[in-house]
């Protein structure tokens, strides 16, 4: 899994997209709310200014051809705000300034304007009324302006609230986007878990329902596993079939040769038959070990660990090999702890130990014993020691490096593959094998797991 080339992350991409979308929406929300509030507030001020100006104009009369204007108190009192906004006014008659602040200029359209008076931003209204008296017609114009301190205070508050609203929306959206992407990616995670949780031998298709979008992925995964399963079982069958094809005729020839050897008297014929049997043995051992090696490589690649007792396992093996050992007057002694629980592939471990015992029987002198130790201390190991002449000191290193290089060299078959198999099995279980000579003579191979 760690060799997979990673390009970006679906989750990050999804979260990023959702969050940036949420940020844009939150900003839009903020501006929309604020603008609306500004409009409403401005409308309020404008209405009051309008009412105030109207009441001022209403108070104007023409008496004896003279315009009289008594500014009503209510016109100003309605303009009172919490922020003590200042009010400016100018009264004009037919475009001529009468009273108030001269810098306030009348403007017919638009009626409402935002202006700057004495350094303060104001909202001003221009209103006019035509007064008609006896022989008199006058145009009275009023410009009324009010600073916007209270309004901007309100606007500040509204902006703050809008910002809070936007932030809240954003936070909620972020949380939602994390949740949504987790929920979506979670489906992938579930699939991953069910793939990883499978045993290495389990190549059956997935049957659990998955979201529709994942259907094609699971479909192609299933078809890949189907093909893999087929090719794996084919290669297993092939190994078994090859062994059968090679071994059965060899067995026939060997049995005939042995039976004939019992009847033949002439020494040179006997010698020929013996060479024949030897050659058959050699080729069958080579074929066997090659096939074993193929099977072991296969199993080591797909290591299935089982809970096993190594003592039980080795004891079975020792029982099985005892008849052959007895033929050579060798005794197999099993020593060590009474129980050594371990989790590994029993078939592989048994094969490795069998190869070690085979070697020991090949090199151990007649009427000697082979000691097999299974122990959990100091490290978990199975060692096989014979009483032969031991490994040649100058060759111990090369023996190790030889099978490290692999068994592809044709001349190492037979002698080299047994240790290679043991080495492969040890490595598949995360262990190693060690070769050494005992001080009192004899070779020792320890398989530590």
């Amino acid at each position: 899994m760690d060799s997979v080339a990673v390009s970006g992350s679906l989750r990050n991409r999804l979260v990023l997209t959702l969050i940036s979308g949420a940020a844009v929406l939150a900003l839009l929300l903020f501006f929309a709310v604020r603008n609306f509030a500004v409009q409403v507030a401005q409308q309020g001020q404008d209405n009051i200014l309008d009412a105030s100006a109207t009441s001022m104009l209403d108070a104007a009369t023409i008496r004896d051809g003279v315009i009289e204007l008594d500014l009503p108190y209510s016109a100003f009192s309605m303009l009172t705000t919490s922020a003590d906004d200042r009010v400016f006014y100018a009264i004009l008659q037919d475009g001529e300034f009468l009273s108030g602040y001269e810098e306030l200029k009348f403007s017919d359209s638009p009626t409402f304007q935002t202006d700057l008076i004495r350094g303060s931003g104001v909202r001003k209204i221009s209103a006019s009324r035509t007064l008609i008296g006896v022989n008199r017609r006058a145009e009275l114009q009023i410009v009324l302006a009010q600073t916007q301190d209270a309004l901007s205070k309100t606007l500040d508050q509204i902006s703050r609230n809008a910002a809070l609203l936007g932030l809240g929306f954003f936070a909620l959206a972020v949380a939602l986007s994390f949740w949504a992407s987790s929920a979506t990616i979670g489906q992938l995670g579930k699939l991953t878990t069910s793939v990883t949780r499978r045993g290495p031998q389990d190549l059956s298709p997935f049957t659990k329902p998955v979201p529709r979008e994942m259907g094609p992925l699971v479909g192609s995964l299933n078809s890949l596993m189907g093909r893999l399963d087929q090719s794996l079982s084919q290669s297993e069958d092939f190994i078994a079939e090859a062994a059968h094809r090679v071994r059965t005729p060899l067995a026939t020839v060997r049995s005939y040769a042995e039976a004939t050897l019992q009847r033949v008297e002439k020494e040179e014929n006997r010698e020929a038959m013996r060479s024949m049997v030897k050659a058959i043995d050699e080729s069958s051992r080579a074929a066997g070990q090659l096939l074993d090696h193929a099977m072991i490589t296969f199993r080591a690649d797909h290591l299935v660990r089982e809970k096993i007792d190594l003592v039980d396992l080795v004891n079975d093996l020792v029982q099985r090999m005892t008849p052959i050992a007895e033929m050579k007057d060798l005794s197999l002694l099993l020593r060590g702890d009474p129980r050594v629980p371990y989790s590994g592939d029993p078939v592989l471990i048994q094969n490795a130990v069998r190869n070690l015992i085979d070697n020991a029987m090949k090199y151990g002198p007649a009427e000697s014993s082979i000691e097999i130790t299974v122990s959990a201390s100091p490290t978990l190991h199975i060692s096989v020691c014979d009483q032969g002449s031991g490994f040649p000191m100058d060759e111990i290193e090369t023996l190790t490096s030889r099978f490290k290089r692999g068994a592809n060299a044709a001349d190492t078959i037979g002698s080299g593959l047994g240790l290679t198999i043991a080495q492969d099995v040890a490595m598949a279980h995360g262990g190693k094998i060690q070769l050494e000579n005992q001080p009192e003579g004899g070779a020792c191979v320890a398989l530590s797991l």
Partner: protein
Amino acid sequence: MKFLLVEDNQDLANAIASRMRLDGHVIDHAEKLEDASAFVATGEYDLILLDIMLPDGDGRTFLEQHRASDLNTPVIILTARSQVSDRIGSLDLGADDYVTKPFDHAELEARCRAVLRRNSGNARTTIEVGGVVFDPLAGHLTVGGEAVKMRNRELRLLELFLNAPGKIFSKSKLADRLFSYDEDVSENAIEVYIGRLRKHLSASEAKITTLRGLGYRLDIDG
């Protein structure tokens, strides 16, 4: 001993059968599972040698059925498959042992002996001549009423002689029976074993005679 050999390869079956007959066993040969079932139903066997890949099925199916019935005839499987893949399965199904083809006949013999020894309760075939009582299955030798402890090769050598008293065995023939083909055996080694056997038999009427240039022969005095 009466063996049933279930093996579809005619040549191999003939070779095994002729070799086992040489050792004095009776062999029935079945080529198919069907024949094997018929043989087992009608006759009693001391041991069944069973091939795995047979034309009408898997030998392990036969083994399973056989174990399900009340017959407890021991079974040794002859397998050509990789030792790695079949080992556990065969033993789990109740095979007593197995050999991988091609097998050393001596190994097959040793395995048969071991399985028979484990399974035999009654029917012991003992050889009794000239004060010697020999149980080849258990590997017990009694000379003049006293048990003698012997090594495996000594036992096999003695069995050869006791099965054919008066027959001459050349040194090389004896060597072929006692040692495997990958061992380098000097003729001296045979002399050593003959020497030991003579010592074991010294209290009996059985004597091993040296025939110069020919070999050895077991003679029973009296």
